[in-house]
């Protein structure tokens, strides 16, 4: 039996449920000058969200509050402020278990406070979307941009994408639900950006029409039963596996973990179609490549311009998805490179480590420059790192007035 389609019908705000492909690819776009936080609001306006749960933490507080305005206007089914990030993520889980499309946002210490929930979401196959506007998690307390929290999220089983610009953010929020909710994927998505740089700066973003929105979430496309008691009364469990120290118990846990990661793998083809590839390359035939994600990519672009002025040709690989990790794509894009420069906004260099573990001849990787704790990354330090790798002397930045 063909399900009855809602496409073409209107929601209570008069928005038309639109085929997502039409909405995202064919519909006219209006250039608009917005902050990243406002862009999140505009994407959510069009995302047919049932439940959003908020908690204040810089730099996502503004976006989370703006979505409250959307709720007041009637665009969102339910919205409230939880009592901590751990509670918020549990509340999000509950709403998703009940078959709702759920959205939330967090950052830095909030991500860490909530951490126990993320592998739980993945294991329970809840396609919640969590925006992560990265900030420092170090002591003493910092609110500044720093991407270290992403390295923790990457091990949770969630899909993890890293937006460079507000435009990425706008498109990926909407596309993210389409990928996450695929029956063969059905996983949560951590959609990350570098706090402040993306959330608090203004940019021109091409928005889809306000009167179009995504079709609502259909919880019966989930690969696991929706907890709404709309199913035959089977006993879902016999002998809770936690009780058993035997092979069947271990095998059950092991195979489920493998299935969660396999589901992330299966998201590849959908993500490639929506995001036009897991990576984006420019001049990847160059000997020298900058390979990174987030706003480090933007700084890389500037460095490439500066170096071009000096006659040094440098290519770029922008990594869009961290989970699934674009292993093949990175290997292919870097196969001719002699120097692979990995600029990062964190102290440990998780991106460089991932790339080293992916490519042959990993000594080609220059794990830097790295800044952290809110330090900016002037393109000049990327230029300097490249020159140093090439054995070209440059005036040090420290010597500058």
């Amino acid at each position, binding site marked *: 039996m063909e399900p009855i389609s809602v496409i073409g019908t209107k929601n209570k705000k008069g928005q038309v449920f639109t085929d997502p492909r039409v909405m995202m690819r064919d519909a006219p776009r209006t250039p608009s000058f917005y902050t990243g936080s406002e862009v999140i609001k505009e994407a959510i306006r069009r995302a047919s969200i049932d439940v959003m749960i908020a908690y204040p933490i810089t730099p996502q507080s503004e976006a989370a509050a703006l979505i409250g305005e959307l709720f007041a206007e009637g665009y969102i089914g339910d919205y409230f402020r939880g009592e901590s990030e751990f*509670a918020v993520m549990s509340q999000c*889980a*509950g709403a998703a278990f*009940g078959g709702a499309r759920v959205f939330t946002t967090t950052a830095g210490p909030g991500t860490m406070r909530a951490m126990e929930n993320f592998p739980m979401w993945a294991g329970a196959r809840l396609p919640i979307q969590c925006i992560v506007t990265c900030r420092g998690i170090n002591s003493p307390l910092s609110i500044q941009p720093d991407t270290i929290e992403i390295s923790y999220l990457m091990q949770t089983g969630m899909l993890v994408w890293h937006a460079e610009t507000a435009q990425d953010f706008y498109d990926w929020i909407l596309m993210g639900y389409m990928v996450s909710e695929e029956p063969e994927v059905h996983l949560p998505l951590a959609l990350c950006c570098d706090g402040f740089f993306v959330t608090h700066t203004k940019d021109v973003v091409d928005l889809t029409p306000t009167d179009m929105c995504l079709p609502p979430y259909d919880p019966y496309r989930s690969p696991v039963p929706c907890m709404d008691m709309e199913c035959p*009364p089977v006993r879902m469990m016999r002998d809770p596996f936690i009780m058993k120290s035997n092979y069947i118990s271990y095998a059950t846990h092991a195979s489920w973990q493998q299935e969660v990661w396999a589901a992330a793998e299966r998201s590849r083809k959908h993500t490639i179609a929506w995001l036009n590839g897991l990576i984006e390359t420019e001049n990847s035939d160059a000997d020298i490549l900058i390979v990174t994600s987030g706003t480090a990519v933007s700084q890389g672009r500037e460095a490439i311009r500066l170096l071009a002025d000096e006659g040094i040709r440098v290519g770029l690989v922008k990594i869009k998805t961290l989970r699934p990790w674009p292993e093949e794509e990175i290997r292919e894009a870097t196969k001719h490179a002699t120097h692979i420069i990995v600029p990062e906004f964190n102290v440990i260099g998780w991106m460089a480590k991932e790339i080293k573990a992916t490519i042959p001849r990993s000594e080609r990787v220059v794990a830097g420059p790295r800044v952290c704790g809110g330090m900016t990354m002037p393109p000049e330090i990327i230029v300097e790192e490249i020159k140093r790798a090439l054995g070209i002397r440059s005036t040090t930045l420290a010597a500058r007035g």
Partner: protein
Amino acid sequence: MSLDYVKFTPGFEQFMPKEYRDMVEHGPFGKKTTVSQMGSFKEILEEHPMCAGCAMTLFIRLAIIAFPNPEDTITVGTAGCGRLAISQAAIPFVYGNYGDQNGVASGLSRGLRLRFGDKPKDVVVIAGDGGTADIGFQQVLHSWFRKERFTTIMLDNEVYGNTGGQESGMTTRGAVLKMAPLGKKFEKMDMVTMAKVAGCSYIATVVPNNPRRVESVIKKAVLIARDIGPTYIQAYTSCNIEYAIPTDKVMEDAKTVEDDRYKFTEYVSDEAKAYLAERYGYKEFVPKAPVAVTTA
């Protein structure tokens, strides 16, 4: 749930496992079964891996029989002994993380209300004393302050049972348990008063050796939570293993504890009383006709 689900697809009857046939033919769905009928119908909870003689199991069994609308009830639990039984019931059991059951239930009950509107879907949290009063304290209290409409049941065995007998906030003062080698230093937490302060519409304390009373409080709590506000039941459900209670003395212990610190108490807010009287015909809550006062 549409009761149509509790039917066989025509032609498939003979292929369904006996367990499933029994659930469809003799289960409680769509019927108003009571604890006095125990033994004459297929129960939603049967097998469980909990310790022999555990009073918690008896309480959970009674509570599930008492659900007023099992075909539309979802349970939420957490780590602890109780989940080992509840997760084997023939109604959904949601597990998030240890101690976050009231957060999960808040989201769940809101999500279900969005999707199903006025059609009641009862959300019932069942969690241990550690899960409720210690690690889950913040989420429990906040769900009450927010007036989330679901029932919270604390299975109070006055100890962390599942991890092998550590002191909890609900342990009585002086008890020597693991992690309290010199005896517990502070009083048993007064969660009942906290429930009152936080605005629960119905609060009761019970022990499992009075099945009809257990049934009565569970029914009221679940019905009130549908429309009026949060409800809280605190049940003494002894841990015979950690407190070394011989299995044949479990009921005797419950009686002693009932007399000592677990007397039956029940608080029903005025709004909840009016609701039970009007909506569900509870005679004891129908306001008495005012006595005519004549003044000379």
